[in-house]
């Protein structure tokens, strides 16, 4: 690992000031960053440890019914918060479908949002990778690419964002709170990650020094609690990244879908909100016909970036399955295997 300076920030202002230097990176739990530093894919000159910042490890109910989750809240802590899991069951399911118990105990909410792609060529400093080394090319284009993007990719980069957590969050209109040199601002999570275009190295819209301080869920997000699921197809049932995943949330009244939310994971460089599919579901009766139309709409623009055409059909079928299970009702208790499409829990018909 390349050597670096270590700075422990005791206030947000101190952290932002310390990050002004080029080559600086924030360190939270480091489950992703340290791994990248060990391979040499990340080579920061200076780490600014934000784990001792006060007040960023809280989950607060807001007066308007929304929820603010501090950036340093641990993934496991949030997923096992009973009130959180009741209000946002698909988010809890997504969290628990990711990584291992050890990693979820360490990894933070803010870190999850900002984790890097798991593209093997990004991790390998000896491979061409425009995302890691602009202008060097993309080894994945002619390489092992069956798990790569089918939506929103460009010839400069076909990597996917690996987060499970972000998928239901983007469906539920989560908002990211940011502090930076210019003060405090907020943006929709949907606007945080960038598609690669011709500048894949700019992974997010964050500016140097920007610090994600919290994540917010609007009050309305809890209205889907009765009909929501996160399903994740992976190459083994636990402790693996998604091949494709889907979060569905339905507001059903009098046998009709009033409002639908749908997002896909493992398909693009960002969590993929499927708005056309949502529109096709609004006003429809829940059932196979409507769900298949939604799946077609969600994947209408998909095209393979390599040996991954199978992911498009897989994603379509997963959308139908996720909508079907969401319509059947959120299970009373999270399934033993979170995110598994094979779960036999019929669900409580809320």
């Amino acid at each position, binding site marked *: 690992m390349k050597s670096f300076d*270590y700075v422990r920030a005791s206030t947000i202002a101190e952290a932002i000031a310390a990050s002004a230097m080029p080559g600086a990176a924030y360190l939270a739990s480091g489950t992703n960053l340290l791994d990248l530093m060990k391979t040499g894919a990340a080579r920061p000159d200076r780490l600014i440890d934000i784990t001792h910042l006060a007040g960023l490890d809280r989950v607060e109910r807001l007066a308007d019914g929304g929820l603010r989750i501090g950036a340093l809240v641990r993934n496991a802590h949030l997923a096992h918060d009973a009130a959180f899991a009741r209000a946002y069951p698909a988010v809890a399911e997504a969290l628990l479908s990711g990584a291992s*118990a*050890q990693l979820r105990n360490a990894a933070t909410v803010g870190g999850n949002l900002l984790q890097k792609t798991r593209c093997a060529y990004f991790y390998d400093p000896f491979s061409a990778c425009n995302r890691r080394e602009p202008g060097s090319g993309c080894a994945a284009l002619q390489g092992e690419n069956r798990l790569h993007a089918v939506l929103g990719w460009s010839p400069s980069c076909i990597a996917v964002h690996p987060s499970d957590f972000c998928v239901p969050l983007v469906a539920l209109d989560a908002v990211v709170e940011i502090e930076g040199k210019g003060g405090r601002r907020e943006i929709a999570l949907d606007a945080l990650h960038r598609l690669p275009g011709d500048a894949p190295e700019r992974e997010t819209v964050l500016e140097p020094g920007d610090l994600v301080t919290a994540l917010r869920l609007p009050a309305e997000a809890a209205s889907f609690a009765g009909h929501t699921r996160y399903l994740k197809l992976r190459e083994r049932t636990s402790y693996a990244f998604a091949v494709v995943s889907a979060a569905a949330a339905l507001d059903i009244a009098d046998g009709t879908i009033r409002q639908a939310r749908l997002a896909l994971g493992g398909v693009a460089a960002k969590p993929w909100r499927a708005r056309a599919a949502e529109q096709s579901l609004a006003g429809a009766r829940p059932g196979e016909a409507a769900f298949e139309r939604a799946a077609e709409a969600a994947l209408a623009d998909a095209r393979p970036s390599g040996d991954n055409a199978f992911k498009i059909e897989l994603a379509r079928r997963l959308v139908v399955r996720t909508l079907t299970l969401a319509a059947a009702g959120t299970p009373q208790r999270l399934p033993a295997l979170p995110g598994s499409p094979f779960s036999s829990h019929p669900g409580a018909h809320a």
Partner: protein
Amino acid sequence: MSFPISLTVNGVKRNVELDDPRVTLLDLLRERLDLPGTKKGCDRGQCGACTVLVDGRRVNSCLALAVSHDGAEVLTIEGVARGNTLHPVQAAFIEHDGFQCGFCTPGQIMSALGLIAEGQAGSDPERVREAMSGNLCRCSAYAGIVEAVLDAQKKLDDSQQRSAA
């Protein structure tokens, strides 16, 4: 430049002058605090052999920088038994053949301790398997590991009930 940190390891306060911020918690334990029971497997957070409890939570010590753990309370496999009396989780791993070569075992046991403290798995073997999926066993002693965790959890629950009665 040196980085002084102070942490409690297996109940003992340790003051350490780190000469390099790159030292992981795993390397601190093994190489500088003479606690080699915690194993280095992949060193990438994938195998779980380095699992320890930090402030009561199981984590991969290979993906943790020691310097950022100033003030932490760490429990390693060396701090689990009471003198010559094995912890019920350790005893259950022996009783159920929850290992073969033993390399992953300290991590498995620390992970099992964390899992039991989390209280999420209960008596459901499927939930135990899922919750232990961050600990790989190349000898594939998984069947024994799951039995050991379930049995240890039951014994701990029973003794808790007895002491509460």
